[in-house]
Every structure is written in C-alpha cells, then in structure tokens.
C-alpha cells in the first residue's frame, strides 16, 4: 500500500514538473469542443451524448498513452528491484483515474459552456460518467503498456484500443442517453450491472496479464 502511494506521488510530481504536457492536453480539449460548437451551433441532446464521449475518448488516449511511454528502460529495471507488478499497475491505474476524472470534469464544463448541458438526471449521469471513465482508463492504461514495449508509438495505443472501445462506448452512450430525461431508477439497473461487470473483468484481466509484461 505504501509502495502504491509512493508511486502515485511520483507520478503527480512528474506531472507537476512537466506542466506543459497537461496544458497541451487541456488546450486540445478546448479546441475540439470549440470545433464542435463552431460546426454545430445547436446540438440536439442525443448528438450531445455521442459527441461528448467521442471527445472523451480522444482526450483520454492522449492523457493516458504517456503513462507508460515516459518510462525509460533504465527506470523499468529500477522498478523491478523496488515493486511487484501488481503494485505498479494499480498505482498507474489509480493515478490515471484521478487524471481522467479531472479531464472529464474539464470537458464537461467546456461542453456546458459552449454547447449546453441537456442532462436532467444528474445523479445517474455522474454514475455513467464515472463508470465510463473507469472503463476507458483501464483499457487505455493496459494498451499503453503494450504500445510502450512495442516502441513508444502513441498511434499504436489508439489502434489497439479502439476496436475494444467501440462496443464499450455503445454501452456507455446508451447509459448516458437515458439520463437525458429524469426517469424511474429501475431502467438503469442493467446498464449499471453491465458497466460494473465489464470494469471488474477488465481490471482482473489487466492485473493478471500485466504480470507477463513485467519480465524481460
């Protein structure tokens, strides 16, 4: 546990010392949202839900892809002596999750500012947002490990994760569209169960398979 906290602190310190990376990411999000505002002006609620998640996907790829890309070979060797693979992947997941919650809040603020906020069931929307963010975080973090070992090609993260992200996004967007109007909470039950089980499965798979990426 202590090791995980240390790793998260290290990630945050690197992020803080290299603020321009986060800054460029946020600017990228601003530009995309402004582009949507510029080309749509009036966005109907269903397109709002879809576009919001598409912007989220591409901002999160950029945010997360760097998490393993920035690790040099020497630092991997240093990690071998200090941590177990489980500690490293959990720390990376936790840090990326915090980062993604920040990015998604920022994207949401931008969307409300430029193209409006058509959601009426705020509580369940927050749940959908959190579930979706966890989904994308786990998927992209895991693919970033593979892409980092394959030669630090950021485009590879996108290519590897998008085929899996398409069906995931179908679930998330479906959930988000239901929150456009206030409804009986019962209709969310399948979405919540589905998202939770997919997230759990992905975390378990990632945790197990990360042990195999560890050894050189």
């Amino acid at each position, binding site marked *: 546990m202590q090791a995980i906290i240390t790793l998260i602190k290290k990630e945050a310190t690197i992020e803080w010392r290299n603020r321009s990376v986060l800054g460029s990411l946020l600017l990228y999000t601003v530009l995309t949202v402004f582009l949507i505002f510029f080309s749509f002006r009036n966005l109907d609620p269903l397109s709002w839900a879809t576009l919001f998640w598409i912007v989220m996907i591409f901002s999160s790829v950029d945010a997360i892809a760097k998490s393993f890309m920035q690790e040099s070979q020497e630092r991997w060797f240093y990690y071998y002596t200090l941590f177990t693979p489980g500690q490293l992947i959990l720390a990376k997941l936790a840090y990326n999750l915090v980062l993604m919650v920040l990015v998604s809040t920022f994207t949401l603020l931008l969307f409300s500012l430029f193209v409006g906020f058509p959601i009426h069931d705020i509580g369940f929307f927050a749940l959908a947002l959190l579930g979706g963010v966890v989904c994308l975080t786990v998927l992209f973090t*895991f693919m970033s490990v*593979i892409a980092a*070992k*394959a*030669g630090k*090609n950021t485009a*590879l993260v996108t*290519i*590897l994760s*998008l*085929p*899996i992200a*398409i*069906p*995931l996004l*179908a*679930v998330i967007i*479906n959930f988000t569209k239901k929150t456009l109007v206030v409804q009986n909470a019962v209709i969310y039950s*399948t979405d919540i169960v*589905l998202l939770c*089980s*997919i997230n759990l*499965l*992905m975390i378990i*798979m*990632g945790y197990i*398979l990360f*042990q*195999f*990426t560890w*050894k050189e």
Partner: protein
Amino acid sequence: MNLKAIWWKLFCVLLLIYVAIAGLLSPVPRLNILNETIRNLYFHVPMWFGQIIIFTVSLVYSILYLLDTNQKNASSIANSKRDIAAHSAVTIGMLYGTLGLLTGMIWGNFTWGTPWSSDPKLNCTAIGMLIYLAYFVLRSSFTDIDKRARFAAIYNVFCYVMFVVLIFVIPRMREFSIHPGNGGNPGFATYDLDSAMRLVFYPAVIGWSLLAVWIWTILVKYREIKLFWNMRMNNPLSAVALDQV
C-alpha cells in the same frame, strides 16, 4: 488427434466434395426472396464456425505460450512454435472471416438489397476483424522475436476474452438483427421442415472447419521451417538442427 494423420484430411476432402455437389444439386425449400440463395447457407455459415474454432485454437496457444514463459527458458524452441501456431491461426481466422464477409455480402445483396446493412452481427464481425488487424499491426511493430511473441500473446488473450464477453453481453449487439434466427426472425430450422438441408449443412460445417485446421497445419509447418532455416543461416554454429522442426 494426430494432426499428421491422413484419415481426417481424406474425410475433409470427401465431405467437401459431397457439400459442393449436394449443396448445389439437392432439393431446397422454395421460398420468396431467398429462392436459390438459400444454398449459400452451406458456404457462408460454416465460415463463421471455422473462424471461431481457429481463433479459439489461437487463444489456447497464446495462453500456453504465456504460461511457459512465466517459468524458465523463455525463448525455447517449443515456445517459438507456440507463437507460430497462434499467429498462423489468426491468419487463417482472418482468411475465413474475409470469405465469410464476402459470401455474406453477396447473399445480402440478393436478399436485403444491400451488401452491408447496420446489422448487429455485421458490426460485431467488423469489430472482430479490426481487433485482429490491430494484432498484425502490433506484431509488425516489434523487432525482437521473443518480445513480439509475448506481447502478441498478451494482446490476443485480452482481446479474445473482451470480444467474446462484449458481443454476448451487450444488448445492442444482440437485438434487432435481421439475420435469420435473431430478434424474432425465424431461423432456417423452421423453413427446413423435412430436415433435408441438415443433411448437407452439418457435413458442410465439419468439412469447412477441418479444412481450416488443415490449412493452419500447413502454414505452421511453412513458418517453422522458415524461422529455423533463417536461424541456421544467420548462425551456422547454432545448436538448432533442422531435424528438430
């Protein structure tokens, strides 16, 4: 089953000759819209059976590879063979997927009026093909053979599990299909009252699946010989003898 044995290859050839002849000549139910295209059932559907079987073979070899790597001699010859087996299985699966898509598009063009509709099964197939195309991109971006084998295996296991879970779990991927036997559409079992079509369909499934395995064994052999030949050429003093292949 000994994959080198000849009896199952003969069996496969006989079945496919039977399927080709009986599939085109045997009586089929006369139905509106479908008409004679119903015979495509013997060629289109078995492609998907063959593809799922061969992708599962690939998954098994990837898991075996990872389990062995985790112990000791990571770059043993046995492990290189497992990687070749998994990679070749994906190649054959893609071949079958392409053939399945092509036969399906011809069929769809005659019955639905369009080669590609937004049918859930088509979407699932498209996602599956994209996953395995990404698998080839991933393989080609490694230069180190052992590393390539390991990460391809990891990606294969992750994606196979996610893909199978997602297509069976997501409601949007199941409902409203215009494929027969889905979303309230009657399946072929309801048309085929005298079960005459089953007499051709089941042999077709077995025959095409066996053919997939057969092509796979040949491709595996070819790639093994190529790999060990290259190792031999690059390092004449290498302990790897060609008769180990």
